[in-house]
């Protein structure tokens, strides 16, 4: 939880240290390649904010399993949701993630990282956890992150969760969203709140 998002951000983009590999047949190679392209794309000079947001959105779609994450973080509310609600949530959530993570790219200072151990999930086939140690700057401290990557077959690898120092982003969001929805108008209330947050930062939440 320690600056979870900051760590996530650094991890996502800190790929410059390792040359991108063309082969993405392994989850760790996929992560390296993805991060490398993400940073190249999002730290390019002279690009408008609007365009950066769009690029970031595309990268999210490409590298993250947003449908699965959406379903996970809304848990039982997902089951009772209509297709329209699901789509509205998907877009709002995407906008929320963009407004949250995109500004962090401004802070990127060429941090380095190394992928470490890759292990299989305890139960799910096709799911691996990739360990990445990230230099968090202050006095050579390193942060430990674990990336949950699913091999979806045709659409390649997708990130489903990130754990930073034992704290799972998916679980944190789910716990928070569950409580929010119970108190503030269910899935529709959550969609509205996510839209507000995104739009406050000037990120569109419609397709």
């Amino acid at each position, binding site marked *: 939880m*320690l600056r979870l998002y900051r760590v996530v951000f650094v991890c996502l983009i800190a790929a410059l240290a390792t040359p991108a590999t063309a082969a993405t047949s392994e989850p760790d190679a996929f992560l390296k390649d993805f991060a490398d392209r993400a940073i190249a794309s999002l730290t390019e000079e002279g690009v408008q904010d609007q365009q950066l947001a769009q690029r970031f959105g595309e990268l999210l779609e490409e590298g993250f399993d947003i449908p699965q994450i959406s379903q996970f973080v809304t848990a039982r509310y997902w089951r009772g949701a209509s297709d329209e609600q699901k789509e509205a949530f998907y877009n709002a959530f995407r906008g929320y993630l963009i407004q949250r993570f995109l500004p962090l790219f401004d802070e990127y200072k060429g941090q380095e990282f190394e992928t470490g*151990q890759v*292990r299989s999930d305890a139960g799910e086939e096709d799911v691996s956890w990739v*360990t990445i140690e990230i230099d968090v700057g202050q006095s050579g401290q390193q942060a430990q992150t674990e990336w949950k990557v699913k091999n979806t077959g045709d659409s390649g690898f997708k990130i489903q969760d990130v*754990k930073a120092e034992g704290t799972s982003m998916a679980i*944190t969001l789910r*716990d928070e969203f569950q409580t929010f929805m119970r108190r503030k108008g269910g899935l529709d209330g959550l969609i509205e709140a996510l839209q507000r947050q995104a739009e406050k930062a000037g990120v569109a939440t419609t397709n």
Partner: protein
Amino acid sequence: METGSQSWPRRLRSHGYVACLMALLITAGCTSAPDSSREANIGSYGVAMADGQTASLAYTPSLTQVAYRPDTSDVPMMQVAVGTTGEDDDPLEGLNRYFYDLNNALDILIFRQFAEAYRVVVPEGVRRSVTNFIRFIKTPVILANDLLQGDLERAEVTTSRFIVNAAIGFGFFDVAADSGLPYHPEDFGQTLAVWGVDSGPYLVLPLLGPTTLRDGAGRGVDVLLDPLTYVLTTPQSIGRVGVEALDARERNLDTIDEIRRDALDEYARVRSLWLQNRRKEILNDEQDIETAATEGFLRSDMDSPN
């Protein structure tokens, strides 16, 4: 926090209670624990994950989730109460929210200001030494709990750390961590969890912040285990509480600011983060077991996807 403590009723002013406050204050400010356990984890993840194997896991849909952890002293598998991380563990949410808001208001008005001033005025190296010294004088409590959990390996680390840091660092420099003996927090709440005691409800205490019934009670026992409880005078104990609280709050300035900016439901996010971190502390560095617990937990919600 010293000022806050002084206005407490007289009966709370005994050494025991003051030290108890001190201990709980470390958990105040919501998310103080993660920082303190960071180095510990970094030190041993590689080993813990080496084989990628997982222990068996039983998920119970009741209040408390149970994981099994092989004990390091050749005792067969132990049942560890790791709890859940969401609202299921929070039957007292209404009351907790009340105290959360109260604590937040006090924090913004008073404690955060002190922490910021501390960061501005005191250089990082000195602050680091303060942290190191606070951990150093906690050694007896950590060692006692290592032993009560039957974790001889960690007890050895704790002892070695004490000797190395006393001899070379005078308690102010964590020389041991640099030579492969990372700090780890341990308390009686964790010991109870290892013994299989459920966490009980999540609690937010006035001034002291998040805990659970079990962990709050455990802090009281830690006070009794701490030799300094019997040595320090009341003003000294209060001073120690204050310094520890200041140290913890300063280290979490950025984290808490970020939560306040970002969360849709700050209370719920802090609860989840606190409980997840607590789970990690209870399971020590046994990453594979922790992961098994988390992954089982994840799947429990995913079994009916539509």
